[in-house]
């Protein structure tokens, strides 16, 4: 009798827990998706708000977008569309060059790690892993100090003063991109059948021919994915660029940071909305391309 009472109590408790659990499993995603989407949607919404306030929506307008085109930014502050476009061009230039160099270097090290037999590979593994986990700000200031020291030495020896600019930003971007490219290409190499290379070798191809005729076409989707990842990271980077850029070489994120530090204005909301739409389109295209590559291979 007593035994069954306890059991019933326990069963009742289990039922309550189960009901709470399933309610939680439904409420959690509702809250989580709201949390993820509300800030972005509100940012977009208020870029169309008639009044300058972000406290309530009073009516629809496009005038803030118009202001940007007419070089007006917030309370009579001048804003230069020209400077913004220039920053965007800088971003594209830095991204392209850094992607090209880091894709070559990253692919080479990935091949060496996958196929090579040499000492210190474990150590090299660690070295490749470090740039991914190290805090951005640490990498940023270490590069800033490094370039300062190098430029001081150059000035001391040659009397010529060097300044940070595209070369320093590109060097920094290549450094953090190499690891990401190497990771992506190595994953592709791991999926590849090494006997294909052996077969090419047996059929009399030299290593150079084997690479260009067999290995490279097979890892190409991985190389393209790695390059796209590098380009995206490069375009998106703020902290490291902030510490390594010089006068006139600001990239788009560095320029945007200058705006966002100011007070909230509808024009800044409008620029943010434009950038959001652009980056969504860009990443969408690159993912679609990757998907096509993956399915073709």
């Amino acid at each position, binding site marked *: 009798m007593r035994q069954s009472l306890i059991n019933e109590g*326990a069963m009742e408790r289990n039922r309550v827990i*189960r009901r709470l659990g399933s309610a939680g*499993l439904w409420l959690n*995603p509702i809250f*989580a*998706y709201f*949390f*993820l*989407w*509300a*800030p*972005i949607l*509100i*940012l977009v919404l*208020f870029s169309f708000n008639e009044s300058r*306030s*972000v*406290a*309530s929506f009073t009516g629809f307008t496009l005038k803030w977008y118009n202001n940007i085109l007419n070089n007006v930014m917030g309370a009579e502050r001048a804003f230069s569309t020209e400077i913004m476009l220039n920053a965007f061009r800088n971003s594209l230039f830095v991204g392209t060059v850094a992607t090209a160099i880091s894709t070559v*270097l990253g692919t*080479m*090290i990935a*091949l*060496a*790690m996958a196929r*090579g037999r*040499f000492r210190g590979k474990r150590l*090299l593994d660690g*070295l490749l892993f470090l*740039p991914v*986990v*190290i*805090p951005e*700000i*640490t*990498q940023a*200031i*270490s*590069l800033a*100090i490094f370039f300062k020291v190098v430029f001081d030495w150059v000035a001391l020896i040659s009397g010529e003063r060097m300044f940070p600019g595209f070369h320093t930003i590109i060097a*920094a971007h*290549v*450094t953090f991109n*190499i690891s990401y490219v*190497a990771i992506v290409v190595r994953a592709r190499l791991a999926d590849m059948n090494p006997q294909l290379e052996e077969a090419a070798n047996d059929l009399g191809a030299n290593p150079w021919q084997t690479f260009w005729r067999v290995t490279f076409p097979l890892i190409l989707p991985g190389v393209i994915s790695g390059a796209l990842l590098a380009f995206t990271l490069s375009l*998106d980077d*703020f*902290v490291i660029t902030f510490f390594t850029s010089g006068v006139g070489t600001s990239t788009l*994120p560095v320029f*945007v*940071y200058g705006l*966002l530090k100011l007070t*909230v204005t509808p024009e800044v*909301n409008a620029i*943010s909305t434009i*950038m*959001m739409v652009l*980056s*969504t389109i860009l990443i*969408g295209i690159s993912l679609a391309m990757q998907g096509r590559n993956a399915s073709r291979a």
Partner: protein
Amino acid sequence: MTNWLKRNQKNGSFLAAPTVVWLLIFFVLPLVIVLVVSLMSRGRGGVAELPFTLAHYARSFDVFSIILWRSIGLAALTTVVCLIVGYPLAFFISTRRRRRAQQITLFLVILPFWTNFLIRTYAWRILLGDEGTINGFLMSLGVISEPLSLLNTQFAVLVGLVYGFLPFMVLPIFASVERFNFRYVDAAHDLGANDVRTFLRVVLPLTMPGVLAGCALVFIPSVGAFVTPDLLGGAKGLMIGNLINNQFGGSGNMPLGSALSIVMMAVVMLSLLVYVFANRRDTGA
């Protein structure tokens, strides 16, 4: 010469050489310089100068220990909140029956993160400001008469960090829930375990690799955060990343900034070690 080339071609080290040289120059050497600078005195204009000293490390753990602990605390809290929100969310996504629904629910987590980090953080300034959307909404409802000060607080930094890094928690957990065989749950129930027990003894241990990876992926960038506390934290929400940044301005102190970033790197390395050990114990058991 040809012999040397042949030998190297075989072992592949010549392929690694250019990249290794690049990383030694632009990654290892700068870190070594930071370490050396962190041990030097502060000269005029904040630059490094001889003699060597440990004073900056002493200050890091003395005057700045509040900010150091605040950074670690905020990063830990961010990790916990991300876990509480992210774990059930990952479960929700991977238990969608139709493939399409699963893709969409996962995509809805990833899509907001295609936007630049700066802009995503800025969006919270609109929401949290004194004349922001949350205060405007609450005041129009008459819940409050004075605006709540939400922006430029540690709370704002916490919200921003959770917002910034939540997918890093969801994705690895999703991957390990995907691999989880739900028949184990039936088996546990058949053997008389209730829901709580089943969760704690079966589901959680088997999804632990995802949980650990997610925690590492959230904690590490949170400790070193710079943009989030800079845009949302103000003076009250200052973190170690901002402190380091401040040492490189006009009235800065480069050796102190270097010492602080070495300390931060040590924290990151320590948490990575914890992750590796926890992971090894988990997979070993």
